[in-house]
């Protein structure tokens, strides 16, 4: 299961999750893009769904643990990463062929990106909301906090306001992440994917 190339892939996925935070900061983007590595790891291990789940989960958690040194609030969303890995392995892996070979501007490609992104967005919103409510009182430092404030002002309770805000802001972010992961998957050399599928050779010292 965990051959050396797959361990490297886990490390790459975790490093990508951490590094994209730098890209978002440099380009001042109003999105998170913090799970592209997790989704990409699952896609690269298609069609082996079990390996895709376990490796993307490992990549997500290692990324969270290391990012936690810079942003100490990220590790609290560990369960969200498990859910993202699960959805990526069950749903996104099914779309791997379209993402790899299909034309980008065709309905199947766009449809799969939208479907995977919306499902990922809804699932991650549902899992994240209790953490957001308990740890941050429903208001994190992101722009979606203003949506929470609007819902609270309209008389919604905290949990439902945070849930509605999450459901409004997470799907667009996750659609973008699935699109980026699919584009990176298309660009990944076949040689690397072949290494991931090969069995581990006997170690020679």
């Amino acid at each position, binding site marked *: 299961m965990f051959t050396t190339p797959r361990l490297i892939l886990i490390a790459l996925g975790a490093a990508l999750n951490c590094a994209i935070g730098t890209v978002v900061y440099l380009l001042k983007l109003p999105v998170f893009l913090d799970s592209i590595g997790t989704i990409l790891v699952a896609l690269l291990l298609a069609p082996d769904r079990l390996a895709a789940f376990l490796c993307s989960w490992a990549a997500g958690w290692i990324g969270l643990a290391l990012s936690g040194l810079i942003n100490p609030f990220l590790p609290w969303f560990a369960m969200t990463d498990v859910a993202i890995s699960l959805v990526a392995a069950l749903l996104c892996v099914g779309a791997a062929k379209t993402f790899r070979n299909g034309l980008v501007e065709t309905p199947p490609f766009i449809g799969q990106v939208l479907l995977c992104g919306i499902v990922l967005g809804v699932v991650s919103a549902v899992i994240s909301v209790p953490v957001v409510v308990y740890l941050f009182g429903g*208001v994190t430092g992101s722009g979606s906090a203003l949506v929470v404030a609007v819902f609270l002002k309209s008389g919604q309770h905290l949990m439902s306001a945070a849930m509605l805000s999450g459901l409004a802001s997470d799907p667009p972010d996750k659609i973008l992440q699935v699109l980026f992961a699919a584009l990176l998957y298309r660009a990944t050399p076949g040689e690397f994917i072949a290494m991931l599928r090969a069995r581990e050779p006997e170690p020679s010292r």
Partner: protein
Amino acid sequence: MTPNGAFTLGAILIALGMGVPGPRGVAVLVVLTLAFAAIEVRGASVIALKRAAMVVLPLAGFMVVVWVGIVGESPAQIAADSAGTRAAALAYVATLCGRLFFIVAVIQLVFLRFAKLTPLQVIRALALPTTLKRVLVITLSLIGTLRHAIDRAHIALIAAGTLTRSPSWRNMIHSWRLIQAVWLSAITIMVGRMRDKWPVEHTIARLDDMLDDAGPAWFSGDDRIWLPLTLGAAVVILVADRIGAV
């Protein structure tokens, strides 16, 4: 104190902080944390507090704007459909930010305890499976590689007029080009290493030997004082306010 002991102690302190004990429990928790800071981290504790303030203050400011400025009442008042006050909203924000500050400060204290060690030495000392330690070391190395790749690609794309330094629509539209350049750079480097460099230099085997060599015990030295003390204090923290209530 070992990294295992410090991380375990940090996890217990954060769990207790999240348990939101009453005022007596909070007092014991703060005293215990300050004792850890003074004895184990010493002068670097000031750095931990500064870093925690730098992380929490902007968030606190944003929360004040949202809760006190826009919403103007606390969640409890909203839930009870009672008249809201900005003072209650401010108290709510203060409680939340106090807890967040504590969490960040504890994490910083734990890591600053080993500030003199390199990340490799800290990972080596952890009582984790070698495979996991190997992945952690490679990940840390890759993060450095990716950061350099980001810097190079970012500057190149700005020079080419594809991206801008300030926020812009162009950045939104072309951000994927930067991410793709970074990913391709990382993949090319890793394929080269796995196919050509590592097998010749036996890198993975050497790394495993180095990580395995330490054979660290889970807890040793001062861990045997700090952990029983913390667990004892945890019992006091959890029951202190209940006794007061009875």
